């Protein structure tokens, strides 16, 4: 068996077939479903680490490609960047699965939920593995399809409304991406992510078209990456169950968009060529605007999940911002933030889900004094908040540090101002929550929705512990070669943009 070929395929199938089988399970067969889900996700985690070992230590190239007969190949290819995204998505799939099992206990339509959940992970795995823009597009559209049922899972009028909004945005984005991908293909033929430079070789007469294509591609991806003004779906989609929001914000949808922008800038156009075309300046401005706008909107939200959603709008754009500056450190900052934002944001959503599920708290006002009632959750929430703000030694600090260094190095000092303002705004909308959790008195009796031995069911407590632990360790041990930062450096080095 040739592992270089089969490992990527196995990686996709581990969640794809899990999902398909789960659809056909009876609603009542909880144990079987959970076992299958866990088996699939544990297998995937092992496979990713095995693959990482083979790639990083043994230097094996994993590649799958077969012809679709359309002038392009379906290519799955593992490079460092895909590995990083894979590691993120597979690990977070595992913890989110555990969390969802606890969260959805006893609620209806679980087979449907877990089926689409696994398919959603398949899609983000495919996005990570895609070796050219067309394969990326295939999985990107697949992701749209399979996340819709998760958004409308609650089946309320509000959820259906949100689903409709979500679809309009994402399908429109998909159509734009389609146009951009086909146009690029007409001009250059199929472009694998490894052949950067092909666009540079084109003559001057193509430059205008290339600029338009870049714009179309970024707009198409920007819908999922929630670049303002294409972010409208994200706060609305908050009606979904907490684990869905967690996954959507941390790895699946939003990250797919951000990851796509990274791919387009680094691996399709090539960052220097994109800079030469004058495309990165506007991109940086758009990202900065999104960062500030998202934070400002977050300030005025009173619903906890809504505030987290606007915070995502703002935080994910750090990735775009980092890609848009021509500097060594910016690239590293952008790539590392892909992971850091994921683990911190998923913790926040897990905690928000815990508050909602055990005490029925949705509004920020209701969180007063919750630190006494649910200390563990509140501690994890607080840690993640500090990470988001960028306090050392949390993971978020590392990202911001590198982004700031990159801004200075790239000669765009104004970005530093954006980063500082954004951090201030982050504090302004996060710290009051922390303050009222710990230092204010509860406004009344807690009404317990779900009783358990600890402050919340164990399955809801363990997953955020993992992720917040990861966020702390990613910051503490950032210097290690195996930390996200170490990997991000290697990636940037492999791309030839890090010395």
């Amino acid at each position, binding site marked *: 068996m040739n592992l270089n070929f089969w490992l990527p395929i196995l990686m996709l199938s581990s969640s794809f077939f899990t999902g398909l089988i789960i659809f056909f399970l009876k609603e009542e067969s909880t144990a079987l479903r959970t076992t299958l889900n866990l088996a699939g996700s544990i297998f995937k985690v092992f496979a990713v680490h095995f693959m990482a070992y083979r790639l990083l230590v043994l230097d094996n190239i994993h590649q799958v490609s077969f012809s*679709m*007969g*359309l002038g392009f190949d379906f290519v799955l290819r593992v490079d460092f960047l895909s590995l990083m995204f894979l590691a993120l998505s597979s690990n977070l799939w595992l913890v989110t699965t555990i969390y969802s099992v606890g969260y959805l206990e006893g609620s209806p*339509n679980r087979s449907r939920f877990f089926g689409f959940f696994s398919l959603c992970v398949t899609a983000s795995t495919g996005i990570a593995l895609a070796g050219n823009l067309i394969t990326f597009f295939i999985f990107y559209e697949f992701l749209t399809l399979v996340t819709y049922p998760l958004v409308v899972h609650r089946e309320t009028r509000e959820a259906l409304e949100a689903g409709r909004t979500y679809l309009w945005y994402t*399908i429109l984005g*998909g*159509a734009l991406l*389609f146009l951009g991908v*086909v146009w690029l293909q007409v001009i250059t033929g199929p472009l694998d992510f490894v052949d950067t430079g092909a666009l540079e070789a084109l003559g001057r007469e193509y430059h205008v078209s290339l600029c338009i294509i870049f714009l179309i591609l970024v707009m198409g991806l920007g819908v999922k990456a929630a670049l303002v003004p294409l972010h409208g779906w994200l706060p609305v989609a908050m009606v979904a169950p907490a684990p869905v929001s967690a996954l959507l914000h941390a790895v699946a949808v939003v990250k797919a968009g951000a990851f796509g922008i990274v791919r387009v800038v680094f691996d399709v156009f090539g960052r220097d060529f994109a800079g030469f075309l004058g495309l990165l300046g506007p991109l940086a401005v758009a990202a900065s605007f999104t960062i500030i706008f998202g934070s400002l909107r977050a300030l005025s939200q009173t619903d906890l999940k809504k505030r987290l959603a606007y915070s995502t709008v703002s935080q994910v754009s750090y990735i775009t911002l980092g890609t848009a500056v021509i500097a060594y450190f910016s690239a590293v900052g952008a790539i590392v933030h892909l992971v850091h934002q994921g683990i911190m944001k998923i913790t926040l959503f897990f905690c928000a889900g815990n508050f909602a599920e055990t005490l029925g708290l949705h509004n920020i006002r209701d969180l007063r004094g919750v630190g006494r009632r649910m200390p563990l959750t509140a501690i994890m929430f607080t840690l993640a908040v500090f990470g988001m703000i960028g306090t050392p030694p949390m993971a978020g600090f590392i990202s911001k540090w590198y982004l700031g260094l990159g801004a200075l190095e790239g000669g765009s000092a104004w970005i530093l101002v954006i980063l500082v303002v954004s951090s201030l705004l982050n504090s302004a909308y996060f710290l009051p929550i922390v303050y009222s959790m710990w230092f204010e008195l509860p406004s009344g009796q807690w009404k317990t929705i779900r009783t358990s031995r600890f402050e919340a069911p164990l399955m809801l407590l363990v997953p955020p512990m993992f992720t917040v632990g990861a966020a702390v360790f990613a910051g503490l041990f950032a210097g290690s070669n195996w930390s996200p930062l170490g990997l991000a450096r290697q990636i940037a080095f492999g791309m030839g943009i890090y010395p």
Partner: protein
Amino acid sequence: MPVGAPPERYGNITVPELLILIPFTGAILCFLFPEVLRRLTGLLSAALIFSNSAILTRSIFQDGARRLHLGGWTEPLGIGMSIDGLSILFILLTAVVGLLVSIYSASFFSAAQEQVLARHFWPLWLFLWGALNSLFFVSDIFNAYVVMELVGISAAALAALSGTSASLTAALRYFLLTMAGSMAFLLGVGFIYARTGLLDMYLVGTVADGGPLMAMALGLMTVALIMKTALFPFHFWLPPAHGEAPAPVSAILSGLVIKGSFYLLLRIWFTVFQNSTVTTHAAALIGLLGLIAVIWGSYQAIIQTRLKLIIAYSSIGQVGYLFLLFPLIFMTPDPAWKTEAWTACIFQAISHGLAKAALFLAAGNLIQASGTDDLRSMRNIADKLPMTTFTLALAGVSLMGLPPSGGFVAKWMLLQSILASGQWWLAAAPILGGLLTAAYVFKILSQSFVSDDKKSCCGNVSFVMEKSALLLALFSILIGFRANEVIFLLSEPVFFIIPGGQSP
């Protein structure tokens, strides 16, 4: 003219002849036999036609296109048959859809009150199948007229099958329209014969000039076939006719019959009038109508509230894509992109045929389970009819043109050739059309995510019916992975010459 290796034979009869003979014989037998035997005969004929189509496809795939002469008489006396990559693709499409629809119908009509329908259904359907097969083999324009009449009459009779007053009105309208179309076509045949003294498509093609008589003939034939293919603004007959018919009939009408007239239109434009007469203005006009059809049909589909009407209006939109072929072929300088456009449209025809048949069969399941095809009856079906829901979703994905379905391959190639030809205005069709399609597909699907506690859904649907619809939907997805073979068949030396370019 390329003449391939001798075809497989059974005694004196060749496989292509069998493909015409079996359905007609089956139709007569079905007419004579009582119920159980009738159903068996129908299924047996379907199986035989399918296997022979498969055999013929393989032999065309290996040996290339060929011409045959019925009874050994050559033209101008005999009846010629031509089989190339294009005809074999349509034969195969008809065989796959036909077989699954036949299997579906065997269960669909089993309820006692529908016995009276089945008695007419089987003979008419096999008759129609035979006529369609003949249509795809036809090589002279007069026979084209004859088989087109056969198709039209049997299709109109099938549309009237359910016998309700709505369906009778719809079928009568359809019948009158198809008759008018046939008359116009016949007139065109007369003009051509008067001018050239020939009927064989290829021979006419070699001598056709751009004179007024030929231009008139082309115009008449084009209008006739456009009416039958339900291109905007001649689409008005389609939604009632397809929407009121029983499910398997709708599947046949939408999936196959409108493809028959489109096929003939391709023959007329690219074989009979291959290097003369056709002007770019006419091609652009047809393309414009196609573009409007895509948008108008999809928009109409969005505002419907009955499942079958949504699917029927969707056909108008999806058929619109096919007509983008004309401006792309006649206004693109680069032959490579012509081939691309050509392949795209054939692919669209095939994947639409499969997906649309699947959708109508799934709608039939829904009606059988809940008694109505109002969209609200879709609630709760995900639990009760998971396969039917899945079918709707898969076929919807193919219609929307999302990867990796057949519809995606079609839209991909279409958009590529549009961009390469520089005719930007046409790009609105795949982009905007895709969005509108997504809107109505999700209008259907989102209902299935709603649980309605007040209403308990539905009766049971037989295993066979659910699975045959699902298979069709699966094929419409899977064909996206086998694009290579289809492209190969279409690139075979065919009896087509595209003006200013290589034969595609």
